């Protein structure tokens, strides 16, 4: 009998296999339950391929999408539908960043503890931090141009405006190309002169004699300026966006420091925003002086992700601390604090660059053009080979106790950044503040 006792351990081993497998499965459930539950084969939450529960509202309680047993019903205003298409998603599941595609768990109210159980099978109300009206304003302000607009609260991380164009009406199948693509998160654009902010930050922290910097701009040889800026110091170089001066500054910094700074300022990072992975910026800093100069002024091979640039502006406004953006309202009271990504810029540097951004507005963009806005900004005009009209960019932030907003606006073929993107930014900011 005692022999049998020992041999019976083989049975216990078999039981262990069962136990370990079961444990592994529960672990997998905790890890992947969300995607299992929201699988389109889930007959409880999908009727003929249409989600049957959950509602999406904007920050003011405007109903954007309602899913019920009759299908998915969108807001009546077609411009609101289009302006928010990349956020809400569409009827056919073509927009991968849409809540209807990538955040179904929130609409369904999935949790590990409750599964998809809700008392009335009506799902959950999802509140966005977005202001639908402001999104519509942005969408309309872009007019016939493609582009992207993002505005967020740099103290809390709430995104208030998020628009991508081209956008198609989510209730109909798209006709135009690229309308499913969420450029703001998943795309990159040539930053043009907005990149000089990055070069400036590197210069402030690395060039001891930057205060005594002076450059005589004759309109440029290899690195061209729009006109001859004459003799400029560091501040004036940024305000007038002097390519020659910044080419020189970049070469003084060298490729190593430039590489270090795009990384340090979060431009080569990918962020996870509501389950969407943002695209990393791409920069090439060559040993070749001319090529390096081009990179330092945001041309050449530079590609920037719109969201990361908006976050950089937010960090400057927030004394150097970067706050992670989000757009699905968090009704969990315990976890309502802004998620800080840490101090990415030294406080002193932030103050200095802030003064320069203000100076840009005073000297170049005109404070009158931005009445009632305590605005800090940098424009950009990105030249594209073979494209007659350049792309316009305008990025920065406003200081306002109740409205601490940073923004990034990109207008494809918009021409001058200040005159195209700047105008869009102004309209959206006014809409948000009033």
């Amino acid at each position, binding site marked *: *009998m*005692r*022999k*049998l*006792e*020992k*041999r*019976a*351990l*083989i*049975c*216990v081993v*078999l*039981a262990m*296999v*069962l*136990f370990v*497998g*079961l444990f*592994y*499965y*529960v672990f997998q*459930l905790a890890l*992947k*339950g*969300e995607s*299992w*539950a929201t*699988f389109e*084969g*889930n*007959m*409880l939450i999908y009727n003929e391929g249409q989600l049957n529960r959950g509602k999406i509202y904007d920050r003011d309680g405007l109903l954007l999408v309602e899913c019920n047993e009759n299908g998915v019903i969108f807001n009546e205003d077609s411009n609101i539908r289009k302006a928010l298409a990349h956020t809400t998603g569409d009827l056919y599941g073509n927009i991968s960043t849409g809540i209807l595609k990538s955040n179904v768990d929130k609409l369904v109210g*999935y*949790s*590990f*503890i*409750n*599964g*998809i*159980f809700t*008392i*009335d*099978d009506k799902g959950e109300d999802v509140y966005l931090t977005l202001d639908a009206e402001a999104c519509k304003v942005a969408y309309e302000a872009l007019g016939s141009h493609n582009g992207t607009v993002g505005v967020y609260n740099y103290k809390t991380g709430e995104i208030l405006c998020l628009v991508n164009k081209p956008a198609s009406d989510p209730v109909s199948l798209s006709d135009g190309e690229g309308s499913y693509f969420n450029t703001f998160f998943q795309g990159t654009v040539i930053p043009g002169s907005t990149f000089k902010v990055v070069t400036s930050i590197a210069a402030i922290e690395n060039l001891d004699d930057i205060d005594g910097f002076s450059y005589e701009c004759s309109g440029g040889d290899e690195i061209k300026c729009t006109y001859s800026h004459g003799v400029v110091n560091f501040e004036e170089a940024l305000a007038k966006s002097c390519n020659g001066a910044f080419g020189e500054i970049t070469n003084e910094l060298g490729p190593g420091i430039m590489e270090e700074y795009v990384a340090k300022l979060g431009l080569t990072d990918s962020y996870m925003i509501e389950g969407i992975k943002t695209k990393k910026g791409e920069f090439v800093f060559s040993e070749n002086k001319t090529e390096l100069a081009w990179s330092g002024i945001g041309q050449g091979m530079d590609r920037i992700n719109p969201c990361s640039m908006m976050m950089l502006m937010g960090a400057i406004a927030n004394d150097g601390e970067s706050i992670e953006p989000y757009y699905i309202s968090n009704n969990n009271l315990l976890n309502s604090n802004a998620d800080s990504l840490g101090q990415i810029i030294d406080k002193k540097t932030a103050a200095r660059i802030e003064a320069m951004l203000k100076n840009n507005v005073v000297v170049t963009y005109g404070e009158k053009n931005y009445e009632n806005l305590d605005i800090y900004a940098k424009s950009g005009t990105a030249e594209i080979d073979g494209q007659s009209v350049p792309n316009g960019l305008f990025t920065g932030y406003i200081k306002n106790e109740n409205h601490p907003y940073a923004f990034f606006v990109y207008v494809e073929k918009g021409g001058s950044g200040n005159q195209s993107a700047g105008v869009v930014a102004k309209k959206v900011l006014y809409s948000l503040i009033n």
Partner: protein
Amino acid sequence: MDIIGMELPYYTYIVRWILMLLAMYILIRNVKSLLTTRVTPEVWAYLNINEEESLPITHWENVIGRSRSVDLRLKYKTVSKNHGLLLRNKDGSWKYEDLSSTNGTKINHSEVKPREYVNLNIGDKLEIGGVMCTLFPISLEEKNNNEAMRGMDKGPISPWRILIAISIFQLLTVIQLIISLGNSFDPMIAVSIFGLMLIMWAYVMGFRMMGSRGFELELIAFFLSTISLAVVSSSAPGMVFKQFIAICLGLMVLIIMCLYLRSLTRSKITRWLLVFGSVGILITNLVFGTLKYGAVNWLEIGGVSFQPSELVKVAFVWIGAVTLDELYKKKNLNLFMLFSGFCLVCLAIMGDFGTASIYFVTYLIISFLRSGDFSKFTLTMGGAVLLAVMVVRFKPYIANRFSAWRHVWEYADSLGYQQTRTMTATANGGLAGLGAGNGMLKNVAAADTDLVFGMVTEEWGIVIAVLMVLCIITFLLFSTMSIVAGRSTFYSIIACGATTILIFQTILNVFGALDLLPLTGVTFPFVSNGGTSMLTSWAMLAFIKATDMRNNASLAIRHRSSGMATYGEEVN
């Protein structure tokens, strides 16, 4: 009516948590009781050595020898490692067998022939390799002492509170089903579940009056059967009464088998009957079988269809079990090996590879229990794996059946349809489930059989589903823990064989549905819809009950009212 409509969702909202807590109470209490028992073995006699020490004989079958793994250890160099066997006869007398030891054995100074039984009487002088031993009976006083010791063992828990808990569980389940099934609620659902409640109480009360005290195993089975009825109610309401009848039959099988297994001699002889019966039924199946779900493993007799291969599982374990002296016979495995081979060939012809693998693993485990030959164990297993690889390699159509394995999400609407729905169902349910009848998996083919684990996770929650599996594991641990106090290797092997089948079946069922293994279409014991499977599960329970040596606990062991059982009478 509207008011009721408003309140209904709140019923599920609250009751699903109550059901989960009840299930935890029921199962954890039973499992804890089974796993914390420490049985003081019954003493059948004493072996006195050199008039110095007395070893208590606690089994009906004992190995005497020098080795560490024997039952009665004599630490003398002249004694062989496995010297001889001391066996208790049906009438309570003893016999001895020498296992071809080096120095031989003498009884009353005359040499004993190796490998032959010799009667050993009380007081006889047994010289084992020159060591003088004497068999002493157990005096009435000692016997009473032992009984008192055994009386102090942690006994089985009282069944009443658990019975009440299961009854509440059943009542709440019926109400939940009325709410969630609405118009498709079949009154037979209530009849079946309340019927189960009735026979459960009748069984426990009846056998309690007759002196049985341990009901943990049956209570777990009653609970699992309740889940089974609820699952069938949800996915195939028309079949629920049939399932209830299967449970009733299963309970009858349990009672009959428990009483039958009380006699070791009877149980041993029955093996031959079972060999012939099994061979007959399997051949009949091959000739007259009908094709269902891709395997010819169904037989229809008089309008009742059943799966012979399920029933033969019971015989298979029974046939595999042997007493200790049979273990020491040369080539003791040959017959069992032959029989196993026959079963496997039959199953292969039927195309039922899931069941074939269960038979094979059970064969492996039982033959290892019998031989202790680990190298043979690994060799056979390795050979089988090689064979499987070859089959898959040279028969691509079989490989195709497994092509979705571990990639089911890539084949979500074809080969991985069932598994992906099962995982989704599990996620739907959360900890406490959506409520019986509220799931979506019930609409998928084989939801209440092959995918039943998924159905339970969805409608009852992952907690109850995990507890179900832990119960099956408990059956096995209880069987292995009981070997210490076991009477005969026959009972221990039969229990370990039965629980091996239950465990391996659970592995195939659960892991198959969840894509940890290929889906083979095997049932979950006690829970899956299916009469034959239910019957077999209850029969396996009888095997486990046959090892339950707790004092007056098991129906499968005759109760000994203290002092009254007389020496010399078979304990049957």
